[in-house]
């Protein structure tokens, strides 16, 4: 049956991309979403292609005069050590973004897994996991971060670990609640009535339904993580000089702010842009995934 085969492969192709395509379509109609996507692409691309964009070695000192104002040679001026602030700012996005993606990515995976286990598993396991989540959440995150950094030493890995551990309970709880609600829904009962195993129900029916809200949460958390990373670096608990990093640039510039405002501006603006970009994107995604705000239903 050639006609059946043809329509089959067509429909099959549309199935995987169908959701994505409709998300992209709706994102296009959301002005704030478009702006968010543009900002995110701008920030991520500039960090990704940083070595091609920079005009000077970001670590080398005295490539120019100290604390110079912006000029054609030094687009955002220089810092107190005579390093090119533009190159440092461009390179400085790599670490915050790496920390954000790595920590939230692992938190997403672990939170999803634990949340699904808590949601679908027996009651005692649910209670145990909730106890663990709530215990972690009862410790103030900055105190926890500082304690872990003091214990493990300030490094990128520590930073990623601390942020990931902090986010897992939040994601886990969201997934768990969604799963609990879904497991009583009729189509899960329908799937069970067709003889599906629990693993299959979780993987095929529950996970795709909870991943939407979770992605929104993650995209809204990215700016927070960037701010936390910059904050910890500002406090000297994050990455070490001379590595360029938005927080470090801010910290260095802060010391010499009465001589030149440019390093502070250069370190602050990308944080603002990245924060706005990811927040707008997250808001737009929430509008799209929230069934109550959906228009196509």
């Amino acid at each position, binding site marked *: 049956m050639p006609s*059946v085969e043809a329509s089959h492969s067509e429909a099959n192709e549309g199935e995987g991309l169908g959701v994505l395509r409709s998300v992209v379509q709706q994102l296009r109609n959301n002005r704030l979403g478009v702006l968010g996507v543009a900002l995110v692409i701008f920030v991520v691309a500039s960090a990704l292609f940083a070595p091609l964009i920079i005009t000077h070695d970001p670590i080398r000192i005295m490539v120019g005069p100290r604390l110079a104002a912006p000029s054609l040679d030094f687009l955002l001026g220089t810092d107190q050590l005579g390093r090119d602030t533009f190159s440092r700012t461009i390179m400085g996005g790599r670490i915050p973004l790496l920390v954000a993606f790595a920590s939230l990515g692992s938190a997403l995976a672990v939170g999803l897994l634990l949340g699904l286990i808590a949601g679908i598993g027996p009651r005692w396991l649910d209670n145990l996991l909730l106890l663990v989540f709530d215990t972690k959440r009862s410790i103030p995150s900055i105190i926890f971060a500082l304690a872990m950094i003091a214990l493990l030493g300030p490094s990128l890995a520590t930073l990623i670990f601390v942020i990931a551990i902090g986010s897992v309970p939040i994601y886990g709880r969201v997934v768990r609640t969604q799963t609990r609600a879904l497991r009583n829904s009729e189509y899960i009962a329908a799937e069970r009535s067709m003889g599906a195993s629990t693993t299959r129900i979780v993987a095929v029916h529950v996970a795709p339904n909870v991943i939407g809200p979770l992605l929104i949460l993650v995209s809204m958390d990215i700016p927070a993580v960037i701010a936390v990373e910059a904050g910890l670096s500002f406090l000297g608990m994050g990455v070490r000089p001379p590595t360029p990093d938005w927080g470090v640039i801010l910290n260095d510039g802060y010391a010499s702010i009465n001589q030149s405002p440019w390093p502070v501006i250069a370190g602050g603006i990308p944080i603002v842009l990245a924060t706005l970009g990811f927040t707008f994107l997250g808001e737009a995604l929430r509008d799209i995934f929230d069934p109550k705000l959906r228009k196509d239903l």
Partner: protein
Amino acid sequence: MRRDHLTSHTSARPVLEIRDLNLDFGTPRGRIHALRDVSLDVPAAKVIGIVGESGSGKSTLAYTVMGLLPENADVSTGSILFEGKDLLKLPALARRRLLGDRLSMIFQDPMTALNPVRTVESQMIDIQHHEQGSRSEKLARALDMLQRVGIPDPQTRIGAYPHHFSGGMRQRVCIAMALLVKPALLIADEPTTALDATLEVQIIHLLKDLQKEIGCSVLFVSHHLGAVAELCDRVVVMYAGEVVEEGTVRDIFHNPAHPYTRALLECDPGRIRQKTRTLPTIPGEIPSLLGSKKGCIFRARCPQAFNRCVQESPIEYRMGLDQVARCHLLDKKRLVSA
């Protein structure tokens, strides 16, 4: 057993035999005795209707057979024999193999019975997981079934998501899915309750035609008496977790023996002859099912209740060839006639 010679006129063994089933729900307020000594048979290739008002245990019974009960449910005694195997004693894996193969179900609300994030095609192919054959063979079967349930242009419609379909179309898809696996027994849990009246008739006729074609048995749960009369061969009347009367459609509708069945029939708007401004109701409400009860379960609402109803639970009294009811009045009648 009385019940055994009742069904002896059908040569083959019933597809489903439920015997003395008791089911409790553990709640913080105590154990709710939701099914009380329920026994019923579903003969091969027959449609059995279960009727009763909300809370009578109809859906609980359907969910018990399918093994879809919540965690706090506890079957205390009884057996559910499906094709001779006791579903309650079967290991989980063996039971799961029967589901979606020999047994399938249609749910009450077609708006929520399909996964909203997957296409109808992928869901219809997935449910054939017990079957042999390639993906394209399964797709062809799915398309054929969609055609039979009256989905126009299934080739293009099958790639759509559930929210692209209307309620009636979705219930057709659900019926197609449940019958796609060619079950020996289809359980339909109020499949028309969420649909409007014109669709209801269409869906009932569709079910009837497909049941004849496939030759499966159907356990049809409904509180719509008209639908039951249209579709079913036999009717089981449930009240407060008990089977109060059972018989052929003809007997139940023309010669109801139990006061509850009579009251239920009088409440059917379709049967009211005179013009009236008030719909008849059964006064009172379903008794609390907490703990065990002595006496007849319907006595508080029964217009004909007498002393014996308080003291003694009625046993099954036989009426004619093929009808049983649990009511002490029938005992008296029999004594008088004898």
